[in-house]
């Protein structure tokens, strides 16, 4: 218990409530009565970490076991970190306020690459060596999971093992194995890790040797000590029956997502070629409307939340979307709960449901065409058409809406200047549409907000071979965009490009990048996803000092036969399929979604009986 030492510091920091725990529904156990203690860490601040659904699920799942106690850990904001270091306060779990060194496991959720330096910083703040090989036999096991774990190579120096795919089963299997090893009386971390590597979906990087060609590409990835050649990600076959929390911790302070969340589906039938989530969570699985209603009611009752939202990659594609929405809207209205719905494809809805949905939807009008021309939308396999945008905008404008938000990406593979300028041209046509309507809202102008992200190629997507645009290329395209806007009705917005460059380097990185991450952290990099902390020059230096270049990872087109750093990971979707998709992209050929026609991606191997239920 660090309470005594913490107390005098807390009034010196911003938002001390981040650091004390005690929230409603947080779980405090008697540490003498549990066998295994787990720190579930999110390498970003409290407000972001507390909003993450995956960790809420794992927290409840592990704590449902009487012999385990899971606690939460977030990255302290730099003001708190400085005071902790100055006063020798190690990083601690929010429930017990015990230092992390007293835990059996320290697990990190990997959601975005720019959080990696925080992992090193948190381990260091816990008094542990960030380098896995330097940690002692009795130090906690450091593991990681989440989407970025699918290519965890840049973190191999720091992480003992990765859980690939959905965590609900593998987490418990890992704990069981650990308890068995501990009970044997002679604890040997290496022996545990060797056996853990036999758990399906468990990747122990130290058991793989990577060799390189002269040109820096990978020559071979060789397993040792009986580790499997391919590690196959885990999925929950019967998603309707999977464990779901009956309750969430209710934070005191406002966090990013502060509401009851229902997970309606995992996976996506769409196959947009830029979207990693669309591939790594395949095959698609949905929960039944009754299960969702039951879980929603339990959550609202036990938290006191008056707001609920639905989580999935594409809620409109739920196989029983109408019945589901109908039931959920009825429940939330009766219970006075605000339901926030994502934008839905409403084409097939009955008039009655449409009316119900429109009563709920208060959010703004948004579209994500992602690309400015139909040709480029075909390249990326994004099934949003201009006609759809115009039709929906027309209805909305006639209903009183005066603003639309359009989301695009810049730097997509096979993009030409015509595609770039197509972005503002599309925006202009929406503006023109507004003024062409006799029934537009009287006396009001229209605002079309165009938000442009920089495309980052990701592993396990058809674009994993593609060269990312360089910083200069993106800036040139941005400036072309700026110059093509001729009306104040259109507003353009984008984020810092440099963070996307770095994200691109790490996303497709190999093990050698570990040194660069280490160097960057040593130079003081942390909270890299926060513009106020991001320091590109330090990162450049860190990568150069590691003997590497950004260009090799980000702006290099890979050849078809190159061994990718993640080739020993099997996410279901085959490399051959992804390559086929890349080639179709080059010809601007669309691929039908899973429901229209199976494209033979290979993810069916993971489903019950080898068959996708789309």
């Amino acid at each position, binding site marked *: 218990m660090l309470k005594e030492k913490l*107390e*005098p*510091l*807390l*009034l*010196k920091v911003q938002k*001390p*409530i981040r650091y*004390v*725990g*005690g*929230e*409603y529904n947080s779980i405090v156990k008697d540490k003498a009565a549990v066998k295994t203690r787990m720190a579930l860490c999110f390498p970003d601040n409290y407000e972001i970490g507390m909003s993450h659904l995956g960790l809420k699920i794992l927290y409840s799942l592990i704590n449902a076991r009487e012999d385990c106690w899971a606690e939460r850990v977030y990255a302290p904001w730099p003001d708190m970190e400085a005071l902790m270091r100055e006063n020798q306060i190690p990083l601690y779990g929010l429930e017990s306020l015990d230092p992390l060194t007293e835990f059996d496991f320290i697990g990190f959720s990997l959601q975005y690459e720019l959080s990696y330096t925080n992992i090193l910083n948190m381990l260091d703040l816990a008094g542990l060596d960030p380098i896995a090989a330097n940690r002692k036999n009795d130090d906690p096991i450091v593991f990681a999971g989440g989407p970025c774990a699918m290519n965890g190579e840049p973190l191999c120096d720091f992480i003992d093992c990765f859980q690939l795919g959905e965590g609900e089963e593998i987490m418990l299997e890992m704990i069981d194995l650990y308890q068995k090893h501990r009970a044997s009386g002679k604890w040997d971390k290496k022996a545990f890790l060797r056996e853990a590597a036999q758990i399906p979906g468990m990747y122990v990087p130290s058991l793989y040797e990577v060799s390189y060609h002269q040109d820096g590409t990978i020559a071979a990835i060789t397993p040792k000590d009986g580790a499997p050649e391919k590690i196959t990600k885990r999925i929950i076959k019967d998603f309707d029956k999977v464990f779901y929390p009956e309750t969430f911790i*209710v934070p*005191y*302070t*406002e966090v990013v997502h502060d509401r009851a969340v229902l997970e309606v589906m995992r996976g996506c039938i769409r196959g947009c070629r830029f979207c990693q989530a669309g591939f790594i969570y395949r095959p698609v699985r949905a929960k039944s409307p009754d299960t969702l209603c039951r879980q929603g009611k339990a959550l609202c*009752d*036990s*938290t*006191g*939340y*008056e707001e609920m939202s639905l989580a999935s990659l594409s809620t409109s594609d739920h196989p029983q979307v109408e019945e589901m929405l109908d039931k959920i809207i009825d429940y939330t209205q009766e219970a006075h709960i605000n339901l926030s719905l994502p934008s839905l494809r409403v084409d097939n809805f009955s008039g009655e449901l449409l009316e119900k949905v429109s009563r709920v939807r208060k959010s703004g009008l948004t579209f994500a065409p992602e690309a400015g021309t139909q040709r480029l939308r075909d390249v990326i396999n994004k099934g949003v058409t201009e006609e759809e945008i115009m039709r929906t905008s027309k209805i909305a404008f006639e209903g009183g809406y005066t603003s639309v938000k359009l989301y695009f990406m810049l730097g997509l593979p096979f993009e030409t200047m015509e595609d770039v300028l197509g972005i503002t041209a599309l925006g202009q046509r929406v503006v023109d549409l507004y003024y062409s309507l006799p029934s537009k809202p009287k006396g009001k102008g229209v605002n079309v907000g165009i938000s442009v992200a920089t495309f980052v190629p990701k592993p396990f997507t058809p674009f994993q071979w593609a060269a990312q645009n360089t910083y200069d290329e993106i800036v040139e395209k941005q400036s072309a965009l700026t110059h093509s806007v001729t009306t104040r009705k259109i507003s353009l917005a984008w984020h810092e490009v440099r963070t996307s460059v770095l994200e691109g380097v790490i996303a497709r990185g190999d093990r050698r990048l570990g040194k660069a991450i280490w160097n960057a952290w040593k130079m003081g990099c942390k909270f890299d996803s926060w513009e106020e902390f991001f320091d590109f020059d330090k990162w450049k230096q860190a990568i150069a000092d590691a003997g590497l270049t950004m260009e090799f990872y980000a702006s290099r087109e890979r050849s078809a036969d190159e061994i990718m750093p993640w080739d020993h990971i099997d996410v279901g979707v085959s490399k051959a399929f992804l390559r086929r998709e890349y080639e179709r992209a080059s010809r601007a050929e669309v691929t039908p979604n899973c429901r229209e026609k199976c494209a033979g991606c290979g993810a069916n191997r993971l489903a019950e009986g080898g068959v996708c239920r789309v």
Partner: protein
Amino acid sequence: MSEPQKKITVIEGKPVYDYRAFYRKEGRAKYISHLDLYRTVQRAFQRAKLPVWYTLGFNPHVYLTYALPLALGYEGVRESFDFRLTEDIPAEEVTRRLNEVMPEGIVILELLPPARKADDIERADYTLEFSMKGVSPEELKAQFDRFTAGEVIETVKHSKKGPKAINLKPALLRCVSKETSRGILLSLTLPAGNRENINPTLLVDAFGKSVGTEPDYRNIRRDRIICGDGSDFR
């Protein structure tokens, strides 16, 4: 003891039942800011499924008011908030149902019909313990006593209207210091309420500035809220 009279207001032809909840705020809960506390209590009502009264108008919200907000980091032994129910439920039952769903460190002591107005509040009693790195309790007490013995205690108070220089001396209605094993313990009475509100940390921070060291707060507690006539705020 007889059950105190209920306070009933009629709003839009319907009776609503006015309550003042007296509560304790302690331990980790002392770091809940005033704004966060509003949300916290509102969600507790929701979990307890109590028929709370919502304000009328365009944007209805749970009617919840605090006579004297408690600053961040302070414990309170008898704080209060006012709310209304749309049904007549015995006070003991409401208290029980709320306590069942309150987060750690917030305990409802009792519910009473509101007796005094927030404007009646004039002062409050506080207890505060602090230490300073590298300063012995003995030395600290001597320094602090010297600081408060002066004719004027100048400091800057930050409010919504911006910083303002004030003299704290007249605000020290009572100030007793005592050594503890790690620092000093102060017992204070200071002006409180809508007209003038002086928090004890303002005094200790001013002292800290005068000696050039930041105080390490150990405990800050509001013990009592007092009306102009010397009686407890009820």
